[in-house]
Every structure is written in structure tokens, then in C-alpha cells.
């Protein structure tokens, strides 16, 4: 373990990342799609009789848009960065070092979009129509540019394609198999989010039903391209996913027929159902635009938030057990080390860097193995609770299961020797107030195997000799 593991009680570091990311995703999609919306609405207003009324409304849209996207969007965007460096420093370091100038270009885009937005917003009353159009258009171009860059880095994590540690070509990693379908899906989703946000602002219009109707009619049209095209893009995206990821989702769906609802399936369905609800809701609004209230419009926007929650969790889970697919496991173990038997069977705490001195086979020994190998994904008693998962285990089962846990495809392989496994198994039992000595677990295992093995295995002794 190269870095310390942030041990967050109950919620876990992964959920900290998820909470910030899910809030950010909706806002960041709005920040880009909203740019296109403002640009097109500016053009549209020029062709309407009540163009100035529409532009006044558009200024109100821009006010909410500016405050919401710059305050919540910008801060949660930086927040994701803070959270991932705490939750997975090794993975963050790889992303930063591989894509440092891509991140820097994304920042340039962000600096541009932010500054242009201010010039558009604060120059509203004095700028010429032509200038306002230029600013709105440039805002969208720079904002979409930032999506283009970040999309390459995000999709790299799940579908790194031809990129490996031996071939660190930035083009191979950036223009990975998931890049294009993901970019197109996100672009259409952001138009939908911009339309949903506009419906909220349009629902505030009072005293002019005709204007409200026209604004809502205009806003709902922003959902049409996404509703029609995204299903096909999802199919394209699906074929770019690694087999194990699609197997995981398929397995979950099949499991439903057998009465078992896997968590990944729930999130997958949450995304799909939310998308369908938004389309149906927008259709109803388009049919009866005058009846839409603020509450109804906000409810639809919140459904979009749930959609992002489902899609984001499903995507994260499809990547299991990796943080960079096929390269780096979620708990900081490199894949190339995982296939090296000598590396994997070394006494874990002697190589982990971030543990204090502990007595061999003590509870502390097990606790530190747990902290450094498991806490990146699991909490003891909260999110992805290890207590729940091990409630009906006994010590021997835990000891044996740890050796083969990676065979299910969603967990990384265990690092360490028999003592480490026994200490961890004993620690897991202690979480249920079942005190089992790690030494007894080892002794029972030795007897069961009918072989008089020494307590310390060969790998440990070899390490000691080397030292």
C-alpha cells in the first residue's frame, strides 16, 4: 500500500466521492447544455414578436443559471478532486500524471467559459445583440470543450483500450473505446437538463399564460433529441464495455428472474426508469404547458438527479474491482503485482508502508490489514458494511473465502500470507463479538489439511532470509 487509506467511519470514502460527484454531474451537464440553450434562445427571441419579453425571461434564466452553476457546480467540481485524492491517491496520481496537460487544457476551457459567462451576464443591458450572441455561442463552445477533455479522462477509467503501463500513449488512453459514445450521450443529456431547468424558470412566469406556454413549448423541445437518440447511443456504449462489466450487469438482470435484485441492477434500472419518467413528464408538460407548477417542474429536475445517481453508481460498479480497468484495483493494488505470486504472498504489513508496529496475529494485525486492504471500498458498519456481509460467516469460512474472493470478479485478490488472512478473519469475527484467536484459525486449518505446516509460510521465511 503506497498511500495511507482514509478510514471514514460509517459512510466510507467511496460514498463521499459519490455524493459530491452526483450533485456535480447534474450541475455540470446543466452548465454546458444551458450555454447552448441561452444561445439558441437568444436567436429564437430575435424571431419572435415579443422578443424583448423572452430576453427578459432569459436574463432571469441566466441569473439562476449563473448562481447555481458557478457556486454549486464549480465548488463540487473541485470537491470531486479533493475526494478522489483522499479515497484513492494511487489512482488519482495516475490520472494526474498521465493527463496533466489535458487537465490543464480543461482548466483553460473552464476559465474561458466562466469569464465569458460573466461578460454575457453583466453586459446584458449594454451589449449589442450581436455581442450577446457571440458571447452565448463562445460560452457554449468553451464549456463543451471542457466536457470533451474531461470525458476522455473519465472514459479512460472504465475502457482504457490500448493504453497500458507499457504503452502510455496519451492518444491511446484519451481516445479510448468509450470516448465517442459517452461524449455524444453526455451532450444530448445536457440538452435535456438545460430544457428541464428552463421549464422550472418558465413555470415561474405569472400573469402571461401565452408567454408561459411559448417558453415551456420551446423548453420541452430540448428533450426530444435525447429521448430519440440516447437509447441507440447506449447500445453503442454497451458494446465498448469490458466483458466482465457487461457480465456483471447481465448477471444482475438474470438474477431478478430468480428473485435476486443485485445492487448494480437497481442502479441500472433507476437510471432507465428516471430517463423514461422525464420523457413522459416532459410530454405531459408539452401537452398542457399552462398547468405546470414550480413544484412539478422541480420534481422533474429531481428525477433527473436520481437518473444521474443511478447511472453514476452503475458505471462505478461496472468497473469493479478496478479503479482503472485492468490496471489498478480499487484498493491500490496494481494488476501487474496481483499476478506476481511472490509479491502477493509476502507478509502484508512488512511491505504496506502505512502501518504501525503490531503483534503478529493480534487483533491490531487484523485491523490494519482490514484498514489498508478493505476500507477503500467497505465500512465496518455502514455503507457496504462488512458486518452485514460477514454476519453468518465463521472464522474458518472467512479464512478460506479471503483466499478465493477475487474469483467472483468483483473483489481484488487478497494480499498477504496465511497469518495476514487468519488475522483478518479473526478481526472480522471480532466485529460480531465473536472472539476467535487468529492462531487457532491457523492451527485448525493446518489440522484440516492434514499437513504439519509451520505457522509461518515459506514466503515469509524467504522474505526474512532476504532481509
Amino acid at each position: 500500500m503506497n498511500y495511507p487509506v482514509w478510514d471514514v467511519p460509517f459512510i466510507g470514502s467511496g460514498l463521499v466521492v459519490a455524493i459530491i460527484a452526483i450533485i456535480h454531474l447534474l450541475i455540470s451537464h446543466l452548465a454546458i447544455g444551458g450555454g447552448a440553450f441561452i444561445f439558441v434562445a437568444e436567436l429564437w427571441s430575435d424571431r419572435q414578436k415579443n422578443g424583448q419579453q423572452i430576453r427578459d425571461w432569459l436574463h432571469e434564466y441566466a441569473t439562476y443559471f449563473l448562481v447555481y452553476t458557478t457556486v454549486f457546480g464549480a465548488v463540487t467540481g473541485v470537491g470531486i478532486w479533493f475526494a478522489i485524492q483522499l479515497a484513492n491517491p494511487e489512482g488519482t496520481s495516475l490520472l494526474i500524471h498521465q493527463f496533466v496537460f489535458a487537465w490543464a487544457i480543461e482548466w483553460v476551457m473552464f476559465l474561458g467559459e466562466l469569464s465569458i459567462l460573466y461578460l454575457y451576464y453583466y453586459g446584458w443591458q449594454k451589449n449589442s445583440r450581436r455581442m450577446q450572441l457571440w458571447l452565448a455561442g463562445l460560452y457554449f463552445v468553451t464549456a463543451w470543450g471542457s466536457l470533451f477533455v474531461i470525458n476522455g479522462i473519465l472514459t479512460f477509467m472504465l475502457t482504457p483500450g490500448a493504453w497500458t503501463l507499457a504503452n502510455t500513449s496519451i492518444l491511446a488512453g484519451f481516445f479510448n473505446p468509450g470516448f465517442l459514445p459517452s461524449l455524444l450521450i453526455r451532450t444530448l443529456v445536457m440538452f435535456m437538463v438545460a430544457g428541464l431547468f428552463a421549464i422550472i424558470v418558465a413555470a415561474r412566469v405569472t400573469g402571461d399564460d401565452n408567454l408561459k406556454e411559448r417558453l415551456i413549448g420551446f423548453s420541452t423541445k430540448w428533450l426530444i433529441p435525447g429521448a430519440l437518440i440516447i437509447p441507440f447511443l447506449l447500445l453503442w456504449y454497451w458494446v465498448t464495455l469490458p466483458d466482465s462489466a457487461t457480465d456483471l450487469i447481465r448477471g444482475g438482470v438474470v438474477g431478478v428472474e430468480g428473485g435476486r435484485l443485485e445492487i448494480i441492477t437497481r442502479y441500472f434500472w433507476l437510471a432507465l426508469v428516471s430517463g423514461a419518467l422525464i420523457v413522459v413528464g416532459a410530454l405531459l408538460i408539452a401537452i398542457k404547458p399552462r398547468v405546470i407548477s414550480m413544484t412539478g417542474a422541480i420534481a422533474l429536475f429531481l428525477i433527473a438527479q436520481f437518473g444521474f445517481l443511478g447511472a453514476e453508481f452503475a458505471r462505478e460498479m461496472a468497473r469493479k474491482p478496478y479503479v482503472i480497468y485492468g490496471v489498478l484495483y480499487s484498493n491500490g493494488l496494481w494488476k501487474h503485482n496481483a499476478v506476481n505470486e511472490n509479491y502477493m504472498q509476502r507478509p502484508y504489513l512488512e511491505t504496506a508502508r502505512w502501518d504501525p508496529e503490531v503483534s503478529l496475529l493480534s487483533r491490531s494485525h487484523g485491523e490494519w490489514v482490514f484498514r489498508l486492504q478493505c476500507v477503500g471500498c467497505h465500512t465496518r458498519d455502514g455503507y457496504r458494511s462488512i458486518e452485514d456481509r460477514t454476519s453468518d460467516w465463521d472464522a474458518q469460512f472467512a479464512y478460506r473465502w479471503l483466499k478465493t474472493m477475487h474469483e467472483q470478479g468483483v473483489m481484488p485478490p487478497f494480499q498477504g500470507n496465511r497469518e495476514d488472512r487468519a488475522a483478518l478473519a479473526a478481526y472480522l469475527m471480532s466485529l460480531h463479538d465473536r472472539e476467535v484467536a487468529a492462531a487457532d484459525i491457523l492451527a485448525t486449518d493446518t489440522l484440516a489439511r492434514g499437513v504439519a505446516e509451520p505457522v509461518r509460510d515459506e514466503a515469509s521465511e524467504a522474505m526474512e532470509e532476504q532481509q
Partner: protein
Amino acid sequence: MIVVGALAMPLPDTLGYAAPVWVLQGLSYFTLSLHLLAMNFTIGACLLLIWTHFRNRAGHAGVKHFFGSSLPLGMSYVITLGVPPLLFVQVLYGQLFYSSSVLIGALWILVIPAVLIAYAAFYYHKLQREARPRYQWAVVAVATTLLLCVGYIYVNNLTLSMSPDKWLRIYEAHPGGGILHHGEPTVPSRYLLFLSGAFAAAGVALLWRGAFLFRWGYDTEANQSQKLGFRAFLLSPMLWIIAASWVYSSRPEDIKAMFVFDSTMVLLAVGVVSALVAIAFAYLSVGKRNLLFPLLSSLGIFGGMVCTVVFRDQVRLEYIKPYLDIASIPVNAQWGMLALFLMALVVALALLVVLMVKVLPKIAEGARERLEKTIAAGRT
């Protein structure tokens, strides 16, 4: 007993540096100085806003309004300009920075809600100060307190990143990262040093404001703004002298040795000269409509920031010498990407300059009209 090494120093990233160290350092210095300038302006503006609220002398209402309107923009650029230095510190010193961040993880992540609340408070103040004038100063005071806490957490983290010998002990006691690094004697002095520019940055903003007010014919308001600006400005050098002496005296002896007849001394001298230039032109700005003097004063402040930033990095390199030699980290240069970044930066900055030249005078015209209305309303 399992024997472990006393030092928990992570290995550098296997990918190495994507550009020569001097390139990454240069980018880091430039962007961090810009970030510090925006940060100092925001903090200084908050403090002066609160001060003028209670002092409430002639011209203070306008100053309060000016800062209240500027705070959301200031905060926005504090965040935006804070991104690249955070990026480059991760590239250059990732194994130090990630480790120290995790060691204070619970507090480090609290930076995000604190900044969010402060930023939202600035918008609340700007949009609601006229409709709900009561306790608006308290809204700004809460935001200021949060930002001051954020600054303290930053200084804490970066100081801790230079002390790998303390990491394992801290991690063993607090694996959730719920404690700050209070034991390090240089933390409070470094904190004060980085905040010492706050009054200068906010003060020079008032000099700019005064120059524009002179041009628009509001001589009384212009004078009041510039006098207050200059007085506030003078607080910064005083604070800087106190902070710098404190920083020096709290350093270990081997680090103090750096301060004698070295390139760092030249850096210190350039910094002092920049600060003197800033003060001189700030003084010359008072009572004048000239925009060149506030500009030169601003550049002087920026020059002082750059020197502080470079100096700080040299001290860091000295501190971490026993643990990490950045010259030994391989460079796998991504020249194409670096060129693309620089091109994007130049094009974006050029575009922004063109747009600003066209749009800012119109925004200023709008501000002038609003000011006229405010003054007319005040007279009636």
C-alpha cells in the same frame, strides 16, 4: 513483532513527470501567484467591508457596496485560479501532498462545504443586501471566518506534506484524518505570511475604483475611496514584516542557513523591491484619475506574490531533501500536449482580452449609470 520502517514515504508515480521540472515549477509559480492575489483580494475585501460597516464614515457606504458586489466574482476566481496550482503540486509532489491530505482527510474535505457556504453567502449578500439589510455584515463575517479556516487547513496540509517523519505517528492515532497538524511551529507564521497581502490587494482595488470615480466626475467619492485604499494598503507591509520575521525565527537552523548569501537572498531582495514599488505607486495613485499608477502598484503586488511563492518552494525543496529529490524523478515529456496547452492558454487569454476590451467599458457604463441613480436617490 512485525518490524516496519519508521518512514512511510510513498514511491513517486511510475509515469514520472510529463515535462521538465522547471516547466512544471514555472506554471505552478505563475498560477499560484494569481490564485493568491485573488484570495488576498477576497479576504481583504471581506475585512474592509465589515470594518466600513461598523465605522460608517463618509464614502464608506459606496466602498461597502463595491466590495459586496465584487465578492462573488472574487470568490469565483479564487476557486478557478486555485485549480492549476493544485494540479501542479500533485504532479511535482504527489506522494507528499496525497499523504498529508489523507492524514487530515476529514478536515481537508471540509474545505469544500466551507467554500460552498462562503461563496453562496457572498451571492446572498449581493442579491439580498437591499431587500434584507439587517445582519448582512454577519453574513459576510461568517463567510470570512469560513475562508480563514480554509486557509488555515491549506497551510496545515502543505506544511505537513514537508514532514514525512511525523506521518506514521499521526496516521496511527487518527486514520480518519480528524486532526490538524498543530504541533508544527511554522504553521501560524506561514499562515499570516500568506494573508499579509490581503489589505494591499483590497486596497489597490479601491485605488482603481477611485481612479474611475475621478474620471466619472465623482471627486469626493473618489478621494474617499483612494484614501481608504491607501491606508488599508499600508497594513500589508507591516503585517508582512511581522510574519516574515516570525517565519524566519521559527525555522530550523539548517533552513535558516538558506537565507544567507544565496539565490534565495536575491529572490527576497526582488520581493522587497516589488513591494516598495507597489507602495510607491499606491501612494502616487491617491487623488489621481491616472490608471497607470494603480496598474503598476498591482503589478508590484503580483511581483511580491511571485517572489513569495518561489521562495516558499525553495524552502520546501530544502525541507524535503532527506526524503525526496525531484531531480531523480524521470521525465517522460509530453511535448505535444504541453504545446497544445500553451496554445489553448494563449488563444483563450487573447480571446478574453479582446472580449473584455469590447465589453468591460459597457459594463462600466452601466455601473456608472447605477451609481448616478444611487447618488441622486441619496440626495433626494
